[in-house]
């Protein structure tokens, strides 16, 4: 029997599988089946939503035969199955439910998953290509050494102790080593309701500050389930539109467009977990079907874990090494007469900041910016210690170690991308400087 783990790329649904059964009198029934799910070396799962005749036949004799196809090489394997049990909860059920929910987003006929059927695999054998139309290339993406590539990237990340450079290095490495040209990292807010783009690569806009709702789209599902989510081919079953819609997640309130390919065919989102905590989501997409295979997912899990731990420790390291002494007084640059006025509005409801009428940022980064702007307006102060900000209760940081570093990166990058009159620089470790090129006109809007 062929090992099921050796044909993982045949459990992707890129090319539909086939299922055949027979009724009590021996009359066969044969139909397409979108997915056969790998459970373990001796079991697969089928979602039995549509196939009433198949279900009746299996109930009669417990047998099914499926044909699975490798989405890249076209290699086919036959699996002889015996029905074992139905499950209405548990890890396999949730995995299938998540996968179906993703594929069905935006479709009118969404069917709730009632159960998954678990089958024992009695045999798995190849269907040799008797007269292949074409042979797979000897060298190619499907033969890449994922472990070696992941190790190389992980090693390069260990040499980086600056969180901001770390994020960029990871995305650069994904392109250089894996050829994944479109990628981003998003970080969660403290309430786990949305994720915000903090780093991106391969898009026309960086989209720093763009948001995705938890539970929505590939990214949101990976964050809420704390599991990798991978879609291998959005083109099958008219998925283009739903893919595009699903990407945003927060349709009704898009303030910064998420950097996104116009018609992605493959997407992969992997949660970044450290010490059991969600530090972010590593996401990649491509305009080619089946760009991300099972082995790519495993490689990215390693990278995401490395990235999460590195961020975690960068945070801790910074806390220990930051200076205690308050910044030396630096005379604020006094706006000369005639300097432009920058209109800045703060909405306490969601801590959003608008600059010259345009949305800038919200949440913790919004509160941080407003805090600095108020101090600047009151006393001309420009220099701040990370440490004092962490300890300032008025900022309502949910946890004084709650990813302040990533929030600051986000804020700084968002201001840089706006290329506007306000910037935050880092003159030295643990210190920030607010630079305001104009006269700041602050107003708080209570709603």
């Amino acid at each position, binding site marked *: 029997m062929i090992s099921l783990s050796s044909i993982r790329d045949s459990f992707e649904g890129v090319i539909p599988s086939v299922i055949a059964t027979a009724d009590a009198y021996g009359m066969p029934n044969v139909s397409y089946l979108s997915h056969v799910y790998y459970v373990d070396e001796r079991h697969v799962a089928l979602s039995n939503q*549509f196939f009433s005749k198949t279900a009746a036949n299996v109930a009669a004799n417990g047998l099914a035969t499926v044909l699975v196809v490798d989405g890249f090489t076209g290699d086919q394997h036959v699996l002889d199955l015996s029905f074992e049990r139905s499950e209405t909860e548990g890890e396999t059920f949730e995995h299938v439910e998540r996968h179906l929910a993703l594929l069905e987003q935006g479709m009118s006929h969404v069917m709730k998953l009632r159960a998954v059927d678990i089958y024992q695999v009695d045999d798995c054998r190849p269907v040799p290509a008797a007269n292949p139309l074409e042979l797979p290339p000897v060298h190619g993406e499907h033969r890449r050494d994922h472990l070696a590539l992941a190790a190389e990237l992980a090693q390069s990340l260990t040499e980086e102790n600056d969180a901001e450079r770390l994020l960029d290095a990871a995305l650069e490495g994904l392109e250089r080593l894996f050829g994944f040209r479109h990628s981003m990292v998003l970080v969660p807010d403290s309430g786990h309701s949305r994720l915000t783009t903090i780093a991106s690569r391969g898009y026309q806009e960086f989209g720093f500050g763009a948001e995705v709702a938890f539970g929505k789209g590939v990214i949101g599902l990976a964050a809420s389930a704390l599991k990798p989510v991978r879609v291998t081919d959005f083109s099958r079953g008219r998925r283009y539109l739903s893919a595009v819609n699903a990407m945003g997640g927060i349709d009704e309130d898009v303030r910064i467009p998420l950097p996104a390919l116009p018609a992605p065919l493959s997407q992969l989102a992997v949660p970044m977990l450290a010490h059991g905590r969600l530090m972010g989501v590593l996401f990649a997409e491509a305009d080619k079907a089946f760009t991300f295979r099972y082995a790519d997912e495993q490689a990215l899990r390693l990278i995401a874990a490395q990235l999460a731990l590195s961020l975690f420790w960068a945070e801790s390291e910074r806390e220990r090494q930051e200076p205690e002494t308050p910044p030396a007084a630096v005379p604020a640059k006094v706006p000369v007469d005639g300097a432009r006025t920058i209109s800045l509005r703060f909405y306490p409801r969601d801590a959003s900041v608008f600059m010259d009428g345009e949305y800038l940022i919200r949440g913790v980064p919004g509160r941080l910016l407003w805090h600095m702007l108020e101090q600047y307006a009151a006393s001309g102060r420009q220099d701040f210690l990370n440490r004092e900000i962490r300890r300032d209760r008025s900022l309502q940081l949910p946890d004084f170690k709650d990813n302040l570093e990533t929030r600051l990166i986000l804020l700084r990058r968002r201001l840089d991308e706006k290329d506007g009159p306000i910037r935050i620089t880092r003159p030295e470790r643990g210190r920030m400087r607010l630079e305001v090129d104009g006269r700041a006109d602050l107003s708080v809007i209570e709603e």
Partner: protein
Amino acid sequence: MLTPEVATFIEGKVMMLVATRDATHRPMIGRGSGASYDGASGLVTVLVSASQWPDAVAHAGEGLPIATTYVRAHDYRAFQIKGVITGVREADVAESERGVRYVREQLEVMMGLGVTRLQLSSTLSDRDLVAITFRPLDVFQQTPGPGAGQRFSAEADA
């Protein structure tokens, strides 16, 4: 008897699945490489590559049951026809040519939908074709959705 609609459908540009079964009722899966309907006899003939699908062909014998499913790839419209095999023989010259034409046309159709030649490499085969002829007993609508699996009773000659 098949309706003209179903007859035309199975002779058109559709992907084909074939299932036979062994004595223990363990199903055997194969793929078709072209089908035709003879209105005079009411029999369907489906071409299957014996070298690519040896198990399905080995269990195709006179008097044994067979299920065949035909799917139009661009809209998933599908029919399943079940019946009893009346004969299995090597494909003749005309049938072999039909098989070659079928593979060529289906490659065009599927590649037009973004499927690669490599992905279809062992799915479509026009070699070593056998002609499996069967008398239809039942026709089922198989298009995904609420009507999937329902007997196409008005048109079928069950």
